[in-house]
């Protein structure tokens, strides 16, 4: 197909695809899935951190956390807008999230149990997210790439805030240090899983990389993440929960243990610690809010009608 060939050549040459350009159905579908999933992750991702807003230890920490969760909702908004340029509405995407048809990042199916988790989530989860997202600033689809630029800026800010919380905890009282270590223990494996299964087991990889909607291999990013985090953990005086972790001089990388992929697939199937609750919370918000959305729409319609009648 010459159209498809031209499309691929444009991508190869580093060109951007814009909403009105022709694109292969697979490209559109894959992008919708990927951007939608990313948007959903931002939305569901509000919940584990929102869980601690009402228990934040200082007014400043409360404000920082609120601002962060607000940013996440904002990211959701940009991403839904990016997805809308591909011809799918936010309402449709929302319905697919709520019915369980579309996924969100599995990491948000883990609970946040102590204040140190706010540190671990910022440091590790946002850290892993950035690792995934920075290359996506160069993705081939224009609106997506531009959304990523804004998002990455804020995410790296969040990661620093998370690390700052971990620092306070790790350098704090015995109990705080214990909380920090416990948080690292619980989030390390799930954070490694955020890059997805090893590339040989990943369904969408090859085509997505050719289309530049995936920029790096999962294993490559995971390695980069480990290499970055280990010295950070050392600096905190915390131990990474992997007895086989060690620096490999030859490779110039850390050797590390793969996360528990059985658990990963269990969580994907809906058996994570919080899958049911997260979806239930979002469904409840949506259902309980129906009268609000309906009410505001009805009012807007009345106003439009009144304006028309006055003209």
């Amino acid at each position: 197909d010459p159209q498809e060939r031209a499309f691929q050549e444009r991508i190869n040459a580093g060109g951007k695809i814009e909403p009105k350009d022709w694109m292969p159905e697979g490209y559109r579908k894959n992008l919708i899935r990927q951007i939608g999933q990313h948007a959903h992750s931002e939305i569901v991702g509000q919940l584990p951190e929102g869980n601690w807003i009402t228990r934040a230890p200082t007014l400043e920490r409360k404000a920082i956390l609120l601002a962060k969760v607000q940013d996440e909702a904002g990211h959701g908004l940009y991403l839904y807008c990016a997805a809308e340029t591909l011809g799918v509405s936010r309402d449709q995407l929302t319905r697919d999230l709520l019915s369980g048809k579309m996924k969100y990042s599995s990491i948000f199916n883990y609970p946040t149990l102590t204040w140190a988790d706010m540190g671990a989530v910022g440091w590790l989860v946002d850290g892993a997210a950035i690792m995934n997202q920075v290359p996506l600033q160069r993705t081939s689809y224009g609106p997506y790439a531009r959304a990523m630029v804004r998002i990455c800026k804020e995410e790296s800010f969040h990661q620093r805030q998370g690390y700052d919380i971990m620092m306070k905890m790790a350098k704090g009282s015995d109990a705080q240090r214990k909380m920090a270590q416990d948080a690292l223990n619980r989030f390390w494996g799930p954070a490694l899983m955020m890059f997805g299964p090893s590339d040989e087991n990943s369904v969408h990889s090859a085509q997505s990389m050719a289309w530049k909607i995936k920029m790096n291999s999962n294993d490559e990013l995971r390695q980069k993440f480990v290499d970055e985090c280990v010295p950070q953990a050392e600096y905190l005086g915390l131990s990474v929960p992997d007895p086989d972790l060690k620096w490999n001089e030859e490779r110039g990388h850390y050797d590390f243990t793969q996360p528990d992929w059985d658990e990963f697939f269990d969580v994907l199937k809906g058996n994570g610690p919080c899958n049911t609750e997260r979806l239930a919370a979002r469904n409840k918000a949506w259902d309980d809010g129906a009268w609000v959305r309906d009410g505001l729409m009805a009012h807007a319609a009345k106003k439009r009608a009144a304006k028309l009648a006055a003209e």
Partner: protein
Amino acid sequence: MSTANIDPNKGDLFEFLCRMGDNTLVLGHRVSEWCGHAPVLEEDIALANTALDLIGQTTLWLDLAGKVEDAGRDADRLAFHRDVWDFRNLLLVEQPNGDFGQTIMRQFLFDAWHLSQLTALMESSDAQIAAIAEKSSKEVTYHLERATDTVIGLGDGTEESHRRMQNALDLLWPYVGEMFVADAVDEAMVAAGIAPNPASLRPAYDTLVNDVFTAATLTRPESDFGHRGGKSGKRHSEHLGHMLTQMQWLQRAYPDATW
């Protein structure tokens, strides 16, 4: 207000500042409970924004209260280490979120008072208070605009949204009166030119809310009976204690930690 300038009793000034700061603290907490559960994404963002503003204002008011008290307590100490009887917020702001309509009605009833209070405080004889009021009033102007639009939109929306908004108004109206009742603390503030007489804000408040209720097709309750006991601290509702268990648990459990 700015003509008089009698140095007020330190205790009265402390009380007054706690009232301002506890209102924003408690309402900020309530609003933040919505996080991730709002009816639509834009509301999640707006509610978080409101909460954020209120928490910021809390820090300003309570830090100043701590300075006035001069007993080594800062805003965090005041926020997280007092028990119910030491809280001075209006009963209105500690009422539970209920449905979204109740939350927005509470916000509107508070914002309408809050903005006129802050506007008056911008003329305060106390320069620090005037400065906080000035900064806050910009944020609260926006809160009031949003709350007004939403009350009107939902009041004059569907039958169901109208019914829910009327219920919210009926439920919350008895908590409005407390805003306008003066006590010894208020009198001391008036005498010192620090703050307006609460009663003086009522006529403008009534005009504003009546206009909004009309636009929203809502009926203002007939009785102006007003519950009291929040701003004096004499008798809060049972809700505040439950809020504090959540808000203060970490600080109570780990009193020596810094965060």
